[in-house]
């Protein structure tokens, strides 16, 4: 403790015992928060930019979660790049070079240029599993018409151009391995290039070599997306210098773009609002020490971040963007007593604080109610912002009340004398209007305009509001999709059954519908487990059939005509029949199962489940209809579900907003009485209504985020109403305080309206409009009949 001079009891700036204690508690608490924050940063900044962190989990179904994660995996961890060049060798060479560079960048867990077919493993799997791996159509042909099957196989044998199968003809006389090879063919338009061992295709006069990369660690952690994006840009430049072209797409690139944008925006929005507020404070109070008002802001931001990391493990970059605007609200607390210097000739910080403290506390409580209401939405984005803002406000409030007066001791601002005159004349005009009954007509006019705007208001919620991706990135992704023919969708089918046999049957039933949709060009293609392996019952049927002497008798003659003795054919059939039955897990473990490995969800709670993934989906409704009437089959549309949950959360947020009004009303009733309650609530209600109307007139959609902005507006409007109602130090100084507070809020939230992320922009516009209307309506509040909280001492 430092030594301090004795202070006379008459000194209004001397802190009371209680105030000293509070200050001590605050300081200890802040040190603890700082320590906690430092500990949280022990593994680097706990900031996340994964959009998925902010989205609600739509379903509580365990299997559905597992399936969602499988479908998301390529989205978050995988990068796909195409290296193109006018000739094949060049394309392969360039891809190899890049592969080498990327492999040594340390940014990827695995970079694949070569298709990595382990022929020995493929041969092994085909040799042991070929009887089970052939497709349903081939199996039926072999079983039902052995003569025709043999005739065709014999043609292949006589054809010099069908040499070079993976399993030599000698071991595959019936050609089953050749049929099973089909499942090795990569999906889409890419094909194996045996000469180079890469996946290759030809389009737009160029040869394109496919590169696949797995990012190391989480694609959405802080550093790697930026580094990957930089590497891709660098690679693109070097490839085009060598006469080639590089196309790349992947979750990491999207994350990097979003991150760069959020960082840039939080930089200039935060910086811009900070600068604006500093200028405003300096102009209004004309003393450097007024900048101490930012200390509560800093304390608030610190508390917000630490609380968020404590509650969620990390703080999202979008939360920080919105959080940066908390400056505008947090700075209101010190402004509420600094502004009083306009009305109190012998202003001191401690005295002014004592006068406004009750109002300040009611304001804090009302604002907290507004934020905490958001905690009850199932939406991590809102929950996180609520926690951040609530903790931030508490921190700022505590700092304003406990610490700031001590620092402002002996200091007085130099208010600008012209300002009270302007404020007073505005108030006088207002009271003249009130006496002439102009106000009710004005109110009626405003109400009519609002109603007109409300009729035009359109409701919109879409996942796309969250992201504003650079068109160049989307173009690349589109071209990669066109060239590879791989256009994965987040929609898929989830098929469950009590046992494997039923699962096969259900997949087959669904497959029939889907085949129809493919011929109608509604769907590009689909991947299912049925395409890989025959069900065990079908395997058994085939085996029985192969043992049947009359079936054998119809198979052998064709072989004999080309010189293969019947005995050799029969011996090879016996070999096939003696192969052990193949289980799903066996088939998936081999190289032929690779493309479908992620479709198998395994056994859980006595159920087996699998995914059927879709490619090139053109009509979601038509494809969704394919699941109708099929037991155990459900169509999963993540994007659609999210959009629906946005919409439902929007109404939930609206209900919560109404509820927060009720709570605020009760709070006001308890503290200020019935008389004050309706007058005070009229301001935020009118401001909200006008904001909705204005959004309609401006053609802005009502989204979850604008509604969230309105939630804030109701709290802010109530603040201003309370200040005007309390009239500490006169109406004019209160108006000045309200206008200053509104300007700071506009400077911070209003600037958010310029964000290129639609969600943030919507939020900013709603708050800016709401604050403007609140300032307009707050002066209409009549003062308290007598000062209910006379200054103590």
């Amino acid at each position, binding site marked *: 403790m430092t030594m301090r001079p004795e202070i006379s009891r008459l000194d209004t700036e001397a802190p009371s015992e209680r105030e000293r204690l509070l200050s001590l508690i605050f300081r200890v608490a802040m040190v603890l928060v700082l320590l906690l924050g430092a500990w949280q940063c022990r593994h680097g900044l706990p900031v996340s930019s994964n959009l998925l962190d902010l989205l609600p989990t739509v379903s509580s179904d365990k299997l559905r979660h597992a399936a969602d994660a499988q479908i998301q995996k390529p989205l978050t961890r995988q990068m796909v790049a195409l290296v193109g060049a006018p000739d094949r060798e060049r394309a392969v060479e360039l891809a190899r070079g890049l592969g080498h560079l990327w492999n040594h960048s340390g940014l990827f867990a695995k970079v694949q240029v070569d298709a990595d077919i382990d022929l020995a493993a493929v041969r092994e799997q085909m040799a042991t599993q070929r009887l089970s791996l052939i497709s349903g159509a081939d199996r039926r042909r072999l079983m039902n018409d052995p003569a025709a099957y043999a005739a065709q196989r014999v043609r292949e044998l006589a*054809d010099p151009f069908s040499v070079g199968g993976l399993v030599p003809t000698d071991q595959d006389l019936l050609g089953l391995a050749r049929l099973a*090879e089909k499942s090795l063919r990569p999906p889409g338009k890419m094909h194996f290039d045996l000469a180079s061992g890469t996946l290759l295709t030809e389009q737009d006069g160029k040869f394109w070599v496919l590169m696949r990369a797995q990012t190391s660690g989480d694609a959405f952690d802080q550093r790697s997306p930026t580094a990957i994006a930089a590497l891709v840009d660098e690679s693109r430049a070097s490839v085009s210098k060598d006469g080639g072209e590089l196309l790349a797409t992947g979750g990491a690139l999207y994350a990097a773009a979003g991150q760069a944008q959020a960082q840039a925006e939080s930089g200039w929005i935060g910086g811009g609002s900070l600068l604006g507020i500093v200028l405003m404070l300096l102009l209004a109070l004309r003393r450097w020490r007024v900048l101490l008002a930012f200390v509560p802001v800093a304390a608030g931001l610190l508390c917000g971040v630490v609380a968020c990391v404590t509650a969620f493990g990390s703080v999202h970059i979008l939360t920080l963007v919105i959080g940066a605007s908390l400056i505008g609200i947090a700075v209101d607390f010190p402004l509420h007593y600094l502004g009083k210097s306009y009305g109190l000739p012998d202003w001191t910080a401690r005295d002014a604080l004592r006068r406004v403290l009750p109002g300040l506390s009611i304001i804090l409580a009302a604002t907290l109610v507004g934020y905490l209401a958001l905690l009850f939405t199932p939406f991590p984005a809102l929950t996180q912002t609520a926690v951040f803002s609530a903790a931030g406000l508490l921190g700022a409030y505590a700092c304003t009340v406990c610490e700031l007066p001590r620092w402002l001791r002996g200091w007085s601002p130099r208010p600008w004398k012209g300002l009270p005159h302007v404020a007073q004349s505005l108030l006088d005009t207002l009271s003249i209007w009130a006496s002439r009954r102009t106000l009710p007509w004005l109110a009626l006019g405003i109400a009519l305009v609002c109603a007109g705007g409300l009729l035009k208001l359109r409701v919109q919620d879409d996942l796309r509001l969250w992201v504003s991706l650079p068109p160049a990135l989307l173009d690349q992704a589109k071209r990669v999709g066109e060239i590879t023919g791989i256009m994965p969708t987040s929609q898929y089918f989830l098929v469950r059954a009590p046992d494997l046999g039923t699962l096969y049957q259900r997949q087959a039933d669904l497959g029939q519908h889907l085949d129809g949709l493919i011929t109608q060009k509604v769907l590009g293609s689909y991947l299912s487990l049925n395409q890989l392996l025959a069900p065990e019952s079908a395997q058994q049927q085939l085996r029985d059939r192969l043992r049947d002497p009359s079936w054998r008798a119809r198979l052998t003659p064709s072989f004999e005509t080309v*010189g293969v003795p019947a005995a050799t054919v029969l011996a090879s059939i016996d070999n096939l029949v003696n192969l052990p039955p193949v289980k799903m897990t066996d088939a998936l473990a081999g190289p032929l199962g690779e493309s479908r490995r992620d479709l198998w969800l395994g056994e859980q709670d006595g159920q087996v489940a699998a995914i059927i993934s879709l490619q090139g989906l053109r009509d979601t409704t038509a494809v969704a209809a394919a699941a109708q009437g099929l037991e155990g089959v459900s169509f999963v549309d993540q994007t659609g579900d999210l959009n629906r949950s946005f919409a439902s959360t929007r109404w939930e947020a609206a209900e919560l907003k109404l509820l927060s009004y009720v709570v605020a009303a009760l709070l006001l009733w308890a503290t200020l009485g019935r008389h004050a309650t309706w007058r005070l609530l009229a301001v935020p209600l009118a401001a909200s209504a006008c904001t909705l109307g204005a959004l309609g007139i401006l053609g802005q959609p009502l989204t979850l985020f604008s509604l969230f902005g309105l939630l804030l507006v109701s709290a802010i409007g109530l603040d201003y109403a309370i200040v005007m109602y309390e009239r500490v130090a006169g109406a004019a100084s209160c108006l000045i305080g309200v206008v200053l507070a509104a300007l700071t809020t506009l400077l911070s939230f209003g600037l958010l309206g310029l964000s290129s992320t639609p969600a943030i922009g919507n939020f900013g516009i709603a708050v800016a409009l709401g604050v403007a209307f609140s300032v307009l309506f707050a002066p209409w509040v009549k003062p308290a009949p007598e000062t209910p909280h006379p200054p103590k001492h």
Partner: protein
Amino acid sequence: MKRFIRYLGVCGALLLGAVTAPAHAFDLPDLQQQLQATPVVRGQFVQQKFLRSLPQPLTSTGAFVLSAQNGLLWELRVPLFQDLLITPEGMFRRGDGGKWQALPQQIGAGRETRLFLAVLAGDTKGLQDNFDMQVSGSAGAWQLVMTPKSALLKQIFQDIRINGGKLVDRIELRETQGDRTVMEMKNARADNKLNDDETRDFAP
């Protein structure tokens, strides 16, 4: 012992002479030039597939037409009747109605079916991307040995050996796993252009 050493010396001298003596050996560009000098070749073929489990090779015979420009027409007649066509666009089989049907390309075949076209037409440049090529002999009797370059192709083909004089006489494909295919061209005749029937056949 002395005699043996002298013998070695003689052998060494002979070997050196063999390497240095010819002023200009028959090489790959020569072979290419020689094969491409004939735009159309017609003839008969005998194809034998040697499978390890069979005592006798699978034998088939028929006729072929090779056009440097259009591709290869392969008319199998014994023991079964089957017409195949290989063009730079792909591989086709004649269906029951006489129309060409495209055959699906398989791994191990795929674009490598064009290899045959390249071999027969003497397109050594196209082949060099995938194979190491060794030419020996003279313009009248040469042998070309093609060894696959890529690890993947090596697991399928051991090598491809082609013998010929003015035209290609014999092609032998040796698969890594032991199967072997030999094609012998008989009565091959060079021509300058396709006849009308053939022109129609080469339009799948």
